[in-house]
């Protein structure tokens, strides 16, 4: 039966995985989402970040067809979320909601079987998928005995049922320990290499920064910036930061070496000097600092973090 559904509604593998055009959601005067255009390519890990109330979960829910947009159109795998054939497309969508609490009386395996049936996925997938997220040992234990991290991994496992082509993960690393987070992202990379498109939100920006192909920053219902981390940094013209380690007596000498450079500022720090300069002035600054010779004990160049980009855009 699943095959028939597949044959009559083949995922449109040519086009992008997610297309949103002019999507808006109004609650009276509140514009929760306000004219979002977004295209996510197949096999892309895409991050969506923003403060609470920025509109990202409303956008998420509209992409999943859970709430109806006030305006605009959303296509997932080429199927309109408002169309009749979206029901078939749902079989190829995995979703992990934020802070979801599943059913305490069911075991991990029973939970998987329940969702597999509803999704039309073969129940033979359940045990291997549990093993994939590291829950094979707890498959027959009831969920009330699961830790927060185990519950989160189970939530991820159910999203993987039915070999999804698009995954929506809302704050997926909540409650996971550092090792589990590493395993989780390794799994995501494996899925991406198989062509799965992954849309992910997280408040832990440092975690996303290293792991997404592109990201969008949302604020006040709009996408304020869109691109790879590097592109966003460039768009922002964020200064580089150089941390110098110097003996206190040499700080003034170092500052004097920089006075002839424009747009470069420096402030003394606990163990030396912090210099802020435009990206294109980097070599000039380094050249000037050569004058310090052996007085320069150490030097670190710090790229602006996604946090800096994030706060730069959403402020």
């Amino acid at each position: 039966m699943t095959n028939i559904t597949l044959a009559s509604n083949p995922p449109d593998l040519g086009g992008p995985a997610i297309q949103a055009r002019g999507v808006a959601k109004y609650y009276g005067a509140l514009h929760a989402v306000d004219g979002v255009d977004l295209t996510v390519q197949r096999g892309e890990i895409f991050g969506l970040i923003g403060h609470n109330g920025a509109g990202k979960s409303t956008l998420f829910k509209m992409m999943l067809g859970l709430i109806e947009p006030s305006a605009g159109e959303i296509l997932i795998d080429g199927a309109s979320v408002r169309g009749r054939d979206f029901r078939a497309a749902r079989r190829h969508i995995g979703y992990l909601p934020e802070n979801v609490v599943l059913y305490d009386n069911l075991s991990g395996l029973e939970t998987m079987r329940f969702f597999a049936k509803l999704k039309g996925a073969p129940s033979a997938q359940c045990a291997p998928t549990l093993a994939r997220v590291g829950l094979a040992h707890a498959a027959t234990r009831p969920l009330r005995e699961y830790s927060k991290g185990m519950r989160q991994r189970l939530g991820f496992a159910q999203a993987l049922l039915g070999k999804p082509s698009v995954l929506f993960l809302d704050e997926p690393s909540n409650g996971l320990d550092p090792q589990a987070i590493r395993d989780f992202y390794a799994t995501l990379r494996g899925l991406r290499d198989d062509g799965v498109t992954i849309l992910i939100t997280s408040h832990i920006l440092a975690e996303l920064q290293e792991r997404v192909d592109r990201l969008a920053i949302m604020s006040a219902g709009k996408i304020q910036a869109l691109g790879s981390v590097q592109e966003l940094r460039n768009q922002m013209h964020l200064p580089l930061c150089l941390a110098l380690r110097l003996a206190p007596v040499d700080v003034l000498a170092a500052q004097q070496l920089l006075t002839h450079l424009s747009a470069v500022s420096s402030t003394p720090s606990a163990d030396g000097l912090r210099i802020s300069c435009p990206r294109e002035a980097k070599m000039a600054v380094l050249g000037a600092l050569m004058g310090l010779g052996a007085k320069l004990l150490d030097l670190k160049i710090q790229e602006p973090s996604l946090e800096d980009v994030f706060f730069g855009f959403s402020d």
Partner: protein
Amino acid sequence: MELTQILTLAAKEFRDRIRNRWVLAVALVFTVFSLVIAYFGGAQQGQLGLRSIEFTIASLVSLVIYLIPLIALLLGFDAVVGERERGSLDLLLSLPITRLELLLGKYLGLAAALTLSTLAGFGLVAILLFQQFSWPGLYHYLGFMISSVLLGLAFLSLAVLMSVIARERTRASGLAIALWFFFVLVFDLLLLAGLVGTGGAYGGDAFAYMLLLNPADVFRILNVFTLEDVRTLYGLASIVPPALAKPWLMGSVMLAWIVVPLALARWRFKS
């Protein structure tokens, strides 16, 4: 509409109530109460043991009218709002399930649990009645059991409607308790007050038909007006016109009390 989706949801809901011993607990409550009432119901008149079919049913009807609506409302009030609060409602709705399938699946699973515990709970008295009065007695008692199940299903349907309307679990439970107060305690009093207040000036039949607006009263009429003795026992004969005293008609009204709240629930179930 896909039956497999409905049955999958229903099976999970039913298994949940078996596993947390809800079905067992309610069946035990019904068993104990029905035995006590059937056996000691006549103690005030200085009698012990089963007296007559009519008397046993009349005694059980007054118990069931209080107990079953309460149990059904408590069973169903968090069906949807509970999933909403846990965050699992969005997950379910992201699957290939329609809102109607979700409601029907939940309802059928809970209805199966309620039906099983009601039949099991009142079954023991059925066996005792059969031993003492044979088939004719059992026939009426079976009618009582079926109408009890229908009463439960009607209030379960109302509970599911509350669980869709309310945005928080606590609010849903408040609404459910309010419904119980209204239908079980207040409604008849209001009706009686209206009847007395107007001095019967407005056609007496109109008041009788208003009884149909309360599933608990429909249940009472279903059971009372099939039995001659009980009719006189309750004195309701004076206000209920014979036109209403037809089991099939009352049964249809009860079915409407099951279907209409569910349909309203689907209509209100937007997101």
